[in-house]
């Protein structure tokens, strides 16, 4: 079953682009990564899902229900952590969390203390006095206190120190094991790589690719580095499937996707001094998506 289904979702801000024709779906129980550079449309997509803004065209469903029509109902089971957390002034952490809990028809007191303990959050402090990282912790507790079935995270780790980040990821994995589906938006690949099963890559408001992390990493891509005896002309390896071609003197490097034989044949026609063929890390694959259309 798909928890989130996005169907040709488009949002225009007047004439300027928000997102265009975004389609993907998130299956129940998976941790789905949503990556792209700043301004690519990640937050826009998430805000559309939460019906904070409304689509220009296209539609989306969560738990099989239209996000616009059934917004209040759907949100009972959604926990959301915004990229920047803003709260009402002059409230204590515990008051804010209780206020947040009051919107859900269940008792969350125990859960609040549990979460606060894990995240080392002082509930008696005033929110105004908290550091950015601690505000983020309030956001995390606030987003998880009602044990949502779908957790939506928009750049959740900014401001958290590595230790807390680790605790937070553990927390997410625990929720995931209990059955929660997670949509995780980020521009930091390593965290997505660590946590997610599948990933959608967004660039300039459009989805470039949806792929399994494992496939993205293993199957298709190879990183080549070739040292030749004589310097090669810059376009010697210019062929379909080759990306990020770089020639520096006798050293040539590129990322290749496709039938490996075609490259090997090409390699065999020059005299080589050394050869490396490696698995590219996600970052490098990712760069390939960003650069492709430039």
């Amino acid at each position, binding site marked *: 079953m798909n928890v989130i289904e996005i169907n040709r979702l488009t949002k225009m801000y007047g004439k300027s682009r928000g997102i265009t024709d975004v389609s993907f779906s998130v299956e129940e129980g998976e941790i789905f990564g949503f990556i792209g550079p700043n301004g690519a449309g990640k937050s826009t997509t998430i805000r559309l899902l939460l019906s904070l803004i409304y689509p220009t065209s296209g539609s989306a469903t969560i738990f099989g229900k239209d996000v616009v029509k059934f*917004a209040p109902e759907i949100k009972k089971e959604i926990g959301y952590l915004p990229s920047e957390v803003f709260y009402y002034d002059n409230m204590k952490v515990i008051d804010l969390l209780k206020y*947040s809990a009051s919107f859900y028809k269940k008792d969350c007191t125990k859960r609040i203390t549990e979460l606060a303990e894990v995240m080392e959050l002082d509930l008696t402090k005033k929110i105004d006095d908290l550091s950015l990282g601690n505000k983020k912790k309030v956001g995390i507790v606030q987003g998880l206190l009602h044990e949502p079935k779908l957790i939506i995270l928009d750049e959740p780790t900014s401001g958290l120190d590595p230790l807390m980040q680790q605790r937070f990821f553990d927390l997410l994995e625990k929720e995931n094991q209990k059955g929660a589906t997670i949509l995780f938006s980020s521009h930091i690949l390593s965290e997505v790589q660590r946590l997610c099963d599948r990933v959608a890559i967004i660039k300039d408001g459009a989805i470039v690719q949806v792929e399994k992390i494992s496939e993205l990493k293993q199957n298709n891509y190879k990183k080549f580095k070739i040292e030749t005896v004589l310097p090669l002309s810059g376009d010697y390896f210019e062929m379909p499937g080759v990306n990020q071609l770089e020639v520096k003197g006798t050293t040539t490097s590129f990322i290749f996707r496709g039938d490996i034989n075609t490259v090997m044949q090409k390699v065999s026609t020059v005299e080589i001094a050394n050869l490396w063929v490696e698995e590219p890390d996600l970052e490098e694959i990712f760069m390939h998506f960003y650069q492709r259309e430039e």
Partner: protein
Amino acid sequence: MNIITREMKANLKSLIIWSIGVLFMVGAGMGKYAGMGGSGETMNELMAEMPDSLQAIMGTAGFDLSKALGFYGLLYLYLIVMATIHAVMLGANIIAKEELDKTVEFLLVKPISRVKVISFKLVAALLNVFVVNLVTLVSSIIIVGRSAEGEKVVGDIVLLMVGMFCLQIIFLVIGTAIAAVYKNAKKAGAISTGILLITFLLAIIINLDQRLEALRYITPFKYFEAESILNTSGLDPVFLGLSLIIVVVLTFTTYHYYKKKDLHL
């Protein structure tokens, strides 16, 4: 319910300040009357000698300033200005602040419809303006009553306060409607108070030039003037009806636009 409590708490400080404000206005204003002692008649004469235009601007035309209630009628103009400024700012702010303070991402991801959010906020705002009205009413009855020597004042003051309450609600929903319609939440407060200022100036201009009488339907400040409430038969049903229509239309506008609004951060 939780939103109402939240809003009441959030607005408590401002409510106290405004309440003290109107209390001070009534106290200080009527203090001036008491200070005049028996010189009320002279005051009337002095006023009568002033040019009509100046009288119109100060809103003193048509009041018997030798009477406590007459003097209070003069003060009423300033009271409604205060009360409506409070109402219009509260209305604009209570809607716009979630966007301004970027708390929409907190509130509207909760399982609650926008219609309910608006309803709770409107209830909280109504309670606030009601308290301001009540403070004005009670302080007026006590303070004016003390200066009045045998005059019957309570009935008239109640009528004036009913008029003021109508104006408060009108400006409250002007504020909410503007905050709901305008994409840029930052401007909502400024535009709302701007409208208040313009309608207030228009009321004065109408006072200055009788030929503009027809325009009195446009500015709420002409709906319930102390002069006509005190000197004739009370609240004008035409303007009561008009107020009701304005409030209904603007409340509907508030709901309609907020429901469709893209909430930006």
